[in-house]
């Protein structure tokens, strides 16, 4: 509460062209080799996930009991699992699941959170107080506990998992957006808009929000890694995506049973989970350094 509200936005005193600002920032962003690396790795992961049906040598659900628990070979470069499914194919489809669930979670969280936060910050007063108290309630319950409880209630279908993961994101986006809106609202040009008789809706969505976009983007990037980890943790605990759909967490948990005998079962999905989180964390750092150097979007 204190940190985010202490930050006085990113708005310049006018409302300049967004596109040119982004282009400039993006070029600046790419000048760092570490950022190039993280952007490259992220793109690669998204490509792998997207092209999984083409790259994967086997259908992810194709069993082959005669060749179960095979160690990595040329036919199965990451080995096979208990029923002879190809781990490499499952890891690729797992990427698809993890990334798409994370992206959907961020989209739901961002859309609802930004709306709630913007309205709350712009209107102020009683509405703001009430919304912020509700946000506070959700912020007090650790993400994993909230997600577990919700999945227990709603059932582990992909839709409900995304919902369970989003709720806390909504509050995080709402807080950051509210902080930024409060800062921008105080600037002169907003008062000027009012003077010329612009409607509140128009001011908020066309003139205030665009200037708050920095910390929101940073938060979205930073949260990707968090959400992917959270989703994997749910799967690992048996409350996430259900078999036979591949999920890294489920694969690691299944490999846990045979840790000494068949380490490849959990090694490869775990490695991919690590790489994905590494990519998003590096990317998040880079984006933060350029868009939000003062750390307004600390979560």
């Amino acid at each position: 509460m204190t940190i985010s509200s202490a930050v006085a936005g990113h708005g310049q005193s006018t409302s300049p062209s967004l596109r040119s600002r982004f282009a400039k920032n993006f070029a600046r962003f790419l000048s760092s080799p570490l950022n190039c690396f993280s952007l490259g790795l992220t793109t690669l992961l998204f490509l792998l996930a997207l092209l999984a049906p083409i790259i994967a040598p086997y259908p992810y659900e194709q069993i082959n009991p005669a060749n179960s628990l095979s160690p990595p070979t040329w036919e199965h470069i990451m080995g096979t699992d208990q029923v002879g499914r190809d781990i490499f194919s499952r890891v690729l489809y797992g990427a698809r699941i993890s990334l798409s669930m994370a992206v959907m979670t961020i989209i739901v969280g961002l859309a609802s959170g930004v709306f709630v936060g913007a309205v709350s910050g712009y209107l102020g007063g009683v509405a703001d107080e009430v919304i912020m108290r509700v946000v506070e309630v959700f912020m007090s319950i650790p993400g994993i506990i909230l997600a577990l409880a919700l999945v227990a209630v709603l059932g582990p279908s992909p839709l409900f998992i995304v919902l369970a993961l989003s709720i806390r994101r909504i509050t995080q986006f709402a807080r950051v957006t509210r902080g930024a809106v409060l800062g921008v609202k105080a600037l002169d040009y907003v008062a000027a808009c009012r003077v010329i008789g612009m409607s509140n809706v128009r001011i908020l969505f066309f003139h205030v929000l665009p200037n708050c976009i920095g910390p929101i983007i940073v938060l979205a990037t930073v949260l990707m890694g968090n959400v992917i980890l959270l989703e994997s943790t749910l799967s690992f605990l048996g409350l996430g995506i259900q078999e036979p759909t591949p999920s890294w967490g489920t694969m690691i948990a299944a490999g846990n049973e045979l840790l000494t005998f068949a380490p490849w079962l959990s090694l490869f999905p775990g490695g991919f989970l690590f790489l994905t989180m590494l990519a998003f964390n590096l990317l998040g750092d880079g984006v933060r350094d350029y868009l939000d150097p003062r750390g307004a979007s600390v979560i």
Partner: protein
Amino acid sequence: MFFKFVIRRVLFSIPTIVGIVTLAFLLGKLIPGDPAVAALGLDLDGASTVSQEELERVRTELGLDRPVIVQYMSWFGDALQGDLGRSSVNRESVTALILRAFPNTMFLLLTTISTAALIGISLGVFSALHRGKSADLVARLVTIVGVSTPPFWLALVLILVFAFNLNLFPMNGSVAEHGWTALVLPTASIALQPAALIARMSRSSMLEVLSQDMIRTAAAKGLGRWTIILRHGLPNALSPVITVIGFQFANLMGGAVAIEVLFGMPGLGSLLINAIFENDLKVIQGVVVIVGITFALTNLAVDLLYSVIDPRIKL
């Protein structure tokens, strides 16, 4: 002015707590399956014959036959008095269950956050002092790897290497059983992430402080390098770090649930997971309430502490 802030902040945590208790109640209303069936404690492998009248009796006993609003009022009233009901699985008082699990989890979290703070601050300060040099780069790399390692996966590797192959630490069990050695691997598994984030914050905060006039003045006065760092640099750099530590304390729970289950530690995480798999409504609600209130109070404490350290901050 300051007291007004403190009072305002403390009062604000009341609606938060009311909200948490309400949220827990709503969760309970949505849970699938028949809690009355779960309450009869079915045999895990065989089946049993449960008559309809028995189910009705249990429903009455659990208060499931009353109007929702009445159920809510009585839930709220009981919760205020510290009565969170009884486990529908084995009739044990939820408060007792939680009181037994709570210290285990808190002990794990406090050990972890202290370890993480120690490592994180040292690493951060070290990194700041060697800014731009290869040592700084290595430290930053360690940091980013730390943040990106999934705790439950790390735990598996640690169990395999340190508990099984090297036989240095127990692979399962509570502190009550094995003493402090039982905490080593679980702590190592979840301390990495907060340590990395604390290191990052310490580094940037330290860099900012080091560039301030005060430090330059101190250097001009001819004070020793370490005197400057320890007496002037660190105390000033630490205030934002404390907030990060507070935030990380709440985030620790994320890793702790899986780690408790994996290491068989009888904490709140294990309690919650068992309750979910057994459809044990009251325990799920109880854990949400207690964990929620605990972290609401932690947030309050962090805010108050921060305002003491840095009085410029207002609510």
